[in-house]
């Protein structure tokens, strides 16, 4: 416990969001935007960056204010902080690109109820120093964005035959349309999870075998 609470910033602080505690593939947090906006790689990237900004900003503020927030109303306070930053992102995206804003739809505003952000505020930012929280939030956002891209890239290539809007195949390519439809989101994420489960199981079996040999 003392190791967790120390203010030392290690590679682990950053990297746990990438792999060991990846918000999407391991913790299954914030699933709604993960499935809803990943029908193209560009949408996925934009959503990842928007979430990253909100996560970074709210982690910083929560961590700075953690001593002054009364315990009884902390969840409500966190939500108001998060909602404020989401409102900012909402208006900024609207100003930069109206096309992008329309294709992401209500899911930008729904970042408020992304349980990953509230979870980080409650479980990490309120208990650690600002700098450490920022590093951790960076790792988490990177993990989240990479996961969104994993889905978006697969779905766009299979469902539309393109990547970031560029056509990859000749006209003979028959797009697998269901992949950009809602059902494809479920199926592709399910397939990614299967892949990771399979990998983890193999790792564990290998460890078991090595232990047997050692004995």
């Amino acid at each position, binding site marked *: 416990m003392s190791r967790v609470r120390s203010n030392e910033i290690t590679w682990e602080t950053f990297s746990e969001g990438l792999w060991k505690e990846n918000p999407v593939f391991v913790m*299954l947090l914030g*699933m*709604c*935007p993960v*499935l*809803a906006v990943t029908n193209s790689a560009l949408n996925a990237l934009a959503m990842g960056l928007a979430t990253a900004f909100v996560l970074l900003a709210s982690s910083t503020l929560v961590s700075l204010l953690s001593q002054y927030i009364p315990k009884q109303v902390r969840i*409500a306070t966190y*939500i*108001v902080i998060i*909602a*404020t930053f*989401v*409102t900012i992102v*909402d*208006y900024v995206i609207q100003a930069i690109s109206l096309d992008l804003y329309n294709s992401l739809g*209500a899911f930008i*505003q*729904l970042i*408020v*109820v*992304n*349980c990953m952000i*509230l979870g980080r505020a409650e479980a990490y930012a309120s208990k650690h120093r600002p700098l450490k929280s920022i590093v951790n939030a960076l790792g988490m956002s990177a993990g989240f964005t990479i996961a969104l891209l994993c889905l978006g890239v697969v779905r766009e290539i299979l469902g539309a035959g393109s990547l970031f809007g560029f056509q990859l195949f000749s006209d003979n390519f028959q797009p697998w349309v*269901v992949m950009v*439809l*809602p*059902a*494809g*989101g*479920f*199926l592709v*994420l*399910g*397939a990614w*999870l*299967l892949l990771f*489960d*399979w990998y983890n*199981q193999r790792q564990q079996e290998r460890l078991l075998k090595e232990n047997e040999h050692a004995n």
Partner: protein
Amino acid sequence: MPTDSLSFIFLNTVLANNFVLAMFLGLCPFLGVSGKLNTAIPMGIATLFVMLVSSISAYAVNMILVALDIEFLRLIAYIAIIASAVQLVEMTLKKYSPTLFRSLGIFLPLITTNCAILGLALFQTFYQYNFAQSVTYAFGAGIGFTLAIALMAGLREKLVLSKLPSVTQGAALSLMLGGLLSLAFMGFAGLGASH
């Protein structure tokens, strides 16, 4: 059928644009509370109830926000409404039906972070529904959510008894099931209109 008639809005949200299976809202309870039918159905009904209460309050609050020209506060106001609506449902249930209150347990407060509720409030504002349309929309969304989570729970109860490869026993299986359900619901697409 005109797209703003009440029966169209109802059918559209229950089947063609089902909140869970077509719009990806409320996935956390859909994946988390769908293990057993007798927790899934009360969860669906509680969500339906919160949806109705927060839809009505969101409609009222939006009128005030528009009248005062402070629409940029909409998101914060809606989240506050939903949190209070959940609190209200919790207190009512505790007073009038302690058994149901106990059986729902931790899932009740978690409805606050169910994005289906906030999504509902945002969409009804976005489509500029009037009062009757908003309530119908909320009712349809709640019924649709209950339908989806009950179907999922029924499927998962059956799967407990079947032999599966060990890799597929986590969330991956639930997602695959969700994908198949979503495919099935695509058959209703002709009934509705995409927004």
